[in-house]
């Protein structure tokens, strides 16, 4: 209750004021940059970066162990007021967001600087403001303690992300942006419908209050199905991914990196909040199996279609599709044996590690693709041959980011995979373990495909055309290394796992496991991938003896590609959305 019109001091004690700063610094940056315009836009954005990063790190330091910070806005207690809360999940996501955004900002300076004659130009003005807005929206999503605040933040995120897609104004990107916007709006309308029902049923939208009030009944099931479906449409979980490949591959490199690394994580994070914090006691094993099954579909479709792409950026976009699927494998594994409550910390921690790992690695990949594009003037995979000579650092960075995604020891993905495999064997769900292993190989396959093309000897000697700035190379490399070394950090005080669950990464078996993944990936790439004709004629080509297998592989990958094209038609995606909504709702009802 209100205390003389002043914030009740007890709840806003400690460093909790930092939470509001984490939101208002980027937000104030947006508004000031908008008013000032001109060359100040970039300066404001770049000075907000270290400030925001420092605040996020401070939040990570001041948070007492095993407790969450809470800030009541205006001093009004929920349910009437809204609160910001930082738990371990919010903190790790905010930290990785701040790191990735800062690195992207360093990278983007080369592409989005105002010309020196102090005239304002369109693309830099929009880019820096939108980047700050995405940051503000994401921090609000990570901290928001109220489902409607999350809705507004989600819309802020969408409105900032969509114009980034079509910053260069080409017809394809405009079309991709419109499709993205409309599908995202469909998703947010469904999410809002769910919050309506929740308010109608329980009289609050505050997450901690709801956790005490909700119980398994049809209202909650319908609300949960609506909200989850809406969020999945925004996260682009297969088969609701129609908008993702064109949107993420068409944007400028820095924008693609933000979109693929961070923006889809916003709605994903709300799904996690919803299931782990609002409705942990809602018995959803059947529904969670559905969710993870779609994740497996995403891994298969995303990876195989990635292997079929001619353009590097499209390949990376399809890789995002596959990695999003990976994130959803944690849901059925989060039930402790014999329980129907989402309570298993290891699975949750694994999901978060995977999300962080993907955020940094994917940003690194898109930035690398941007440098390659700048160097070659195109990003056709078949034409990558000279790039290892002209841009060795970029190819190295791409390779490191790829290794991080595959899950070499010490990377975030490695820890995530180990944790999930452990849980899968504990709960006797061998099929998800299989999916995890296959996922690693499929990831390896498209990384191998790109690296082999990049390392191939060039058809004629080539000289570097442009000089990619060292800052750009460094920014991408830092992100790749960040993903590669995430597993070395002791996450115990932020994520629900004990420090001994992360075993020593440098054992022989761990290294062998990675080697298997890469070898398997290479085989898959040879069988399913699209290869430059020059490569297949090379003396060391191994295509001749395996021609029948290759033929079968091509058939599989072509069918997958064709199916994917069908699924990406608007009405078909609509049918998928409705069907998922209904199946998910029924799956929840069944378990009652």
């Amino acid at each position, binding site marked *: 209750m209100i205390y003389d019109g002043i914030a009740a001091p007890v709840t806003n004690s400690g460093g909790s004021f930092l939470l509001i700063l984490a939101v208002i610094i980027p937000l104030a940056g947006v508004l000031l940059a908008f008013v000032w315009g001109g060359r100040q836009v970039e300066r404001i954005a770049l000075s907000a970066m270290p400030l925001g990063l420092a605040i996020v790190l401070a939040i990570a330091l001041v948070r007492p162990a095993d407790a969450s910070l809470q800030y009541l806005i205006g001093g009004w207690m929920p349910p*009437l007021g809204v609160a910001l809360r930082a738990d371990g999940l919010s903190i790790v996501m905010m930290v990785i967001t701040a790191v990735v955004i800062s690195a992207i900002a360093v990278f983007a300076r080369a592409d989005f600087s105002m010309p020196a004659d102090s005239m304002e130009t369109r693309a830099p003005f929009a880019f820096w403001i939108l980047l700050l807005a995405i940051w503000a929206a994401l921090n609000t999503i990570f901290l928001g303690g109220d489902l*409607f605040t999350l809705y*507004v933040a989600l*819309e802020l995120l*969408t*409105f900032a992300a*969509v*114009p980034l897609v*079509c910053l260069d*104004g*080409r*017809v*394809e990107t*405009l*079309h991709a*942006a*419109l499709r993205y*916007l*409309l599908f995202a*709006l*469909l998703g947010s*309308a469904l999410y*809002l*419908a769910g919050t*309506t*029902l929740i*308010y*109608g049923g329980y*009289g609050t939208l505050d997450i901690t209050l709801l956790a005490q009030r909700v119980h398994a009944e049809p209202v909650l099931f319908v609300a949960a199905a609506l909200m989850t479906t809406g969020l999945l449409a925004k996260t682009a979980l297969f088969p609701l991914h129609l908008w993702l490949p064109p949107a993420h591959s068409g944007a400028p490199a820095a924008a693609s990196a933000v979109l693929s690394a961070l923006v889809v994580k916003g709605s994903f994070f709300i799904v996690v909040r919803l299931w782990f914090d609002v409705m942990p006691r809602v018995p959803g094993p059947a529904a969670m199996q559905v969710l993870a099954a779609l994740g497996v579909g995403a891994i298969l479709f995303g990876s195989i279609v990635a292997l079929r792409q*001619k353009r590097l950026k499209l390949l990376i976009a399809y890789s995002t599709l596959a990695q999003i699927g990976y994130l959803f494998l944690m849901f059925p594994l989060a039930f402790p044996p014999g329980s129907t409550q989402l309570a298993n910390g290891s699975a949750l921690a694994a999901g978060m590690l995977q999300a962080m790992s993907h955020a940094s690695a994917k940003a690194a990949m898109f930035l690398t693709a941007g440098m390659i594009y700048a160097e070659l003037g195109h990003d056709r995979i078949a034409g990558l041959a000279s790039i290892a000579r002209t841009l060795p650092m970029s190819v190295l960075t791409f390779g490191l980011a790829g290794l991080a995604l595959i899950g070499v020891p010490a990377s975030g993905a490695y820890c995530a995979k180990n944790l999930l495999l452990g849980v899968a064997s504990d709960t006797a769900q061998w099929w998800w373990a299989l999916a995890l292993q296959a996922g690693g190989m499929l990831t390896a396959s498209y990384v191998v495909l790109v690296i082999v093309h990049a390392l191939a000897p060039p058809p004629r000697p080539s000289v570097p055309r442009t000089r990619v700035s060292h800052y750009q190379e460094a920014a991408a490399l830092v992100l790749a290394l960040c993903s590669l070394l995430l597993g070395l950090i002791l996450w115990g005080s932020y994520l629900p796992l004990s420090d001994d669950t992360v075993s020593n990464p440098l054992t022989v078996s761990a290294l062998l496991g990675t080697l298997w993944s890469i070898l398997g990936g290479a085989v898959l790439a040879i069988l399913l991938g*699209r*290869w*430059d*004709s020059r490569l*297949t004629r090379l003396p060391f080509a191994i*295509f001749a003896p395996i*021609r029948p297998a*290759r*033929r079968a592989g*091509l058939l599989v990958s*072509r069918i997958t590609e064709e199916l994917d*094209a069908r699924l990406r038609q*608007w*009405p078909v995606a*609509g*049918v998928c*959305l*409705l069907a998922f909504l209904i199946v998910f709702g029924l799956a929840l009802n069944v378990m009652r």
Partner: protein
Amino acid sequence: MSAATLAGLTGAVLAGLGLYGLIIQPDPLRRILAFNVLGSGVFLLFGIIARRGAAAGALADPVPQALVITGIVVAFAATALAVALLVRLFGETSRVGSLAELSGQTRGDGADDL
């Protein structure tokens, strides 16, 4: 049947209609319209909840009403952005030719090498 219940049912039907239109309409402007119908249907659901929450001398619960006002503003911003995108897309497409041709070009692919 009370006015509130009726409004709630109307809201549910509007949401269904909007959903249908959003999925089946090929014309983007019609999709934008359908999104607005869907949105207003969802808002009406808030309306019934607000009305049924009348208490303490208030004729309705003010919280859902305020949420609807915020929602209407956000939906308008979405509509404005979508319309601007659509108009620009239309302008660019008229220059390039039809969009179907364009997407046909990008999707066509050559043979694979065995």
